[in-house]
């Protein structure tokens, strides 16, 4: 998987440029497969290496979340956390974020160990192998900097031009 910074920037950067993208839903979707699957799996593995007897059967089902269909199902469940009137739109944008996540993941080369893209329908694994699995480590700080610049520029453009005074709003020209 690319690192979380890259995944987060992959959502925050377009959301900073295009105002119609709801940033939180899109960003949640972009990191959802890793936050809900990889992070618990890594934590369980660290505990296991530390001597805590954790059965593999606990971490295996979590891995399903890091498949496109599993992550899609979790995205639908995550959208249920939103208020009813925001749910349908939120669901679409969380799913869009999930799609961006897997687009990045599948671009990587894991030396022949691809992702189960159709699980549970098939255990056929695939990846495009366009970039090295570590390529994003050097890219991520630059990407984070560009994303911060875009959001800074957006904030600067949308800031109030003159602060309101105690006597009321500034006179119009």
């Amino acid at each position: 998987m690319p690192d979380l910074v890259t995944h987060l920037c992959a959502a925050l950067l377009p959301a900073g440029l295009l105002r119609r993208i709801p940033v939180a839903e899109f960003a949640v979707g972009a990191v959802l497969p890793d936050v809900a699957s990889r992070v618990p799996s890594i934590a369980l593995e660290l505990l296991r290496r530390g001597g805590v007897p954790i059965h593999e059967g606990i971490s295996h089902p979590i891995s399903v979340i890091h498949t496109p269909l599993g992550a899609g199902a979790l995205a639908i469940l995550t959208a249920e956390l939103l208020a009813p009137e925001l749910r349908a739109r939120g669901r679409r944008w969380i799913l869009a974020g999930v799609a961006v996540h897997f687009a990045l993941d599948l671009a990587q080369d894991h030396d022949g160990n691809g992702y189960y893209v159709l699980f549970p329908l098939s255990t056929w694994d695939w990846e495009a192998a366009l970039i090295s699995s570590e390529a994003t480590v050097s890219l991520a700080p630059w990407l984070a900097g560009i994303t911060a610049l875009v959001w800074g520029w957006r904030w600067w453009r949308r800031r109030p031009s003159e602060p309101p005074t105690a006597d009321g709003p500034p006179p119009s020209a």
Partner: protein
Amino acid sequence: MSRRLLPLGALLFLVGSGGWWDYLMLSRQVGTTGVLAHRHEHVGERLALSLGEVRQVRAPDRYLVVQSSDRVYEVRGDTSAVREGEVVTVGVEIAPDGALRALWVREHPDRVGKFALGIAGLLAFFGLLPVWYRWTPGGLRHRGDHA
């Protein structure tokens, strides 16, 4: 009605496919002798053992690669290409006797950097969410108020 069934269906899908994943992986369990007994591999097949730690050099031409507590592979190959404690991906070929013969080894020097970026990403993500929810003009709280 269908909208109410959608999350229920998603939950059932996750539980069902989680169980299926568990069944598949446990039925493909790997022994500790180095002979691959999972994934129905065949003699002559080539595959990569990703992100394993070189745990021990056992003989001049044999070393152990550990992916997790129950995925321990004994690899036959040039031990000068690896060092104990390194995280590597080893491309192997399954020999007729079931042994894993190393074809190539790739070290992962940026694993620490990747882990650090993962932590930074987690902090940024969980730090940004409440900011966006409460304080930004387009935040969820405000949108909910107006709806």
